[in-house]
């Protein structure tokens, strides 16, 4: 199995070298209705994020007296993968990913500025080619910045795996479903701190450092691209 993922010439199934990222495309500020929105394409994975808030919580019980509550809804379109698979909203897997994303943003967003309010993030995956979690986090970060919600730093995420003795960056669908260990990392680029580390398979401790280092390197390059995207969006004339 591992032999298929990394050809002897050192090329992966999609022709990339092990430490290569997929092509990144971003658009910020798509929806007129949402306070902030962003669209991220990482290779063939397409993700849309919309942020609403800070706003009045839907139910009185859903508020915290000293800070804002971040709610994440993560949806994968039924047409997004090779086979049509319709998932209900309460699918445990989707709820788990939503919870991971929520906990990724909680330490970064300055929620103490908005007590008793809520910030809603809606994520929709339109096309799934692996790396949905980190595409979703990157799209949500851009959408938060577009909404003007104060954050102490950017959040950038990337995934890395391990096959045939080499660490691979930014896994696609084939690599992810081939049972390679996959580590997703969310990082704050300015301070280098990690805000989320997610792995659901087994990886030998000897290889862990290489995979982690590659993932953080990937985060840093993604951070540069996201930086450029936001600067461009700031420069497009909006009356000041």
């Amino acid at each position: 199995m591992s032999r298929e993922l990394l050809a002897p010439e050192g090329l992966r199934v999609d022709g990339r070298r092990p430490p290569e990222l997929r092509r990144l495309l971003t658009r910020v500020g798509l929806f007129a209705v949402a306070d902030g929105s962003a669209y991220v394409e990482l290779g063939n994975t397409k993700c849309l994020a919309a942020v609403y808030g800070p706003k009045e919580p839907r139910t009185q019980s859903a508020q915290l007296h000293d800070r804002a509550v971040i709610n994440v809804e993560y949806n994968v379109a039924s047409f997004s993968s090779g086979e049509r698979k319709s998932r209900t909203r309460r699918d445990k897997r989707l709820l788990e990913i939503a919870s991971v994303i929520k906990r990724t943003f909680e330490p970064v967003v300055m929620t103490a500025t908005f007590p008793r309010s809520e910030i809603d993030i809606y994520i929709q995956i339109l096309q799934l080619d692996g790396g949905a979690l980190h595409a979703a986090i990157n799209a949500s970060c851009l959408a938060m910045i577009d909404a003007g919600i104060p954050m102490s730093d950017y959040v950038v995420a990337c995934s890395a795996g391990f096959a045939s003795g080499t660490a691979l960056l930014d896994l696609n669908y084939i690599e992810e479903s081939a049972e390679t260990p996959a580590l997703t990392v969310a990082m704050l680029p300015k301070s280098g701190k990690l805000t989320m580390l997610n792995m659901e398979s087994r990886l030998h401790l000897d290889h862990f450092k290489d995979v982690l280092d590659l993932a953080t390197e990937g985060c840093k390059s993604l951070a540069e691209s996201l930086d450029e995207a936001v600067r461009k969006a700031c420069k497009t004339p909006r009356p000041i």
Partner: protein
Amino acid sequence: MATIALPGDVVAVPDDPAALRLGPGLTQLLGAVTAVKAGLVCEDSGNRLWLNASQKRYIPSVGEPVLAVVQAKHAENFRVDIGGPHPALLPVLAFEGATKRNRPNLDVGALVYARVSLANKDMDPEIECVNPATSKADGFGELKGGTVVKCSLGMCRSLMAKNSPILEGLSSLFPFETAIGMNGRVWINAETTRQIVLAANFIRAADGAPPSRIPSMLKALKKRVEETDDGDDMDADS
């Protein structure tokens, strides 16, 4: 030259840091002045540093004029929507000449021009329809007729600037009255419905357009205003 700062960027501080006042979008994290939003860093002569960020959600701040929509009537106050994180309260007595016997007659859905009197992150914000210094209305109060345009906060700030090219340009075409709320809402009223619609569409289109495009947009608008409106029965009832 304005620099763009992104969340987490440390902002260069002018010479006298002790007397520096930080405005919206900047905060002190671990001893350094850091940006928490994406925007242009601006400073003025009064040693004030702030971030001009484009945003749609309004965060209330004392003294700012806002356009509020009445959501509910309670005994002592009205509950209004100002487009912020929480609905605001408008006390029944916060109008010119209002007493317990003489209450203002506002229906649910009425539009009101008011100023923010209380804006604290831990409490619901409060607005008032009087100028606190003079106890007179000074333009605040219910707005009748016209239409409301939703725009970005940056657009409202630029409309409130002296000699805003958009408003000056419009005023050269036809007379109109306007109330600009810092919460991303602009109210426009003119003599005919057609003028109101043209003015509202113009403001909507100008939000996000580069300043260099405004003169050409005004020229196109001028042509539309001067078009004869036969077959245009928008004013059939007036």
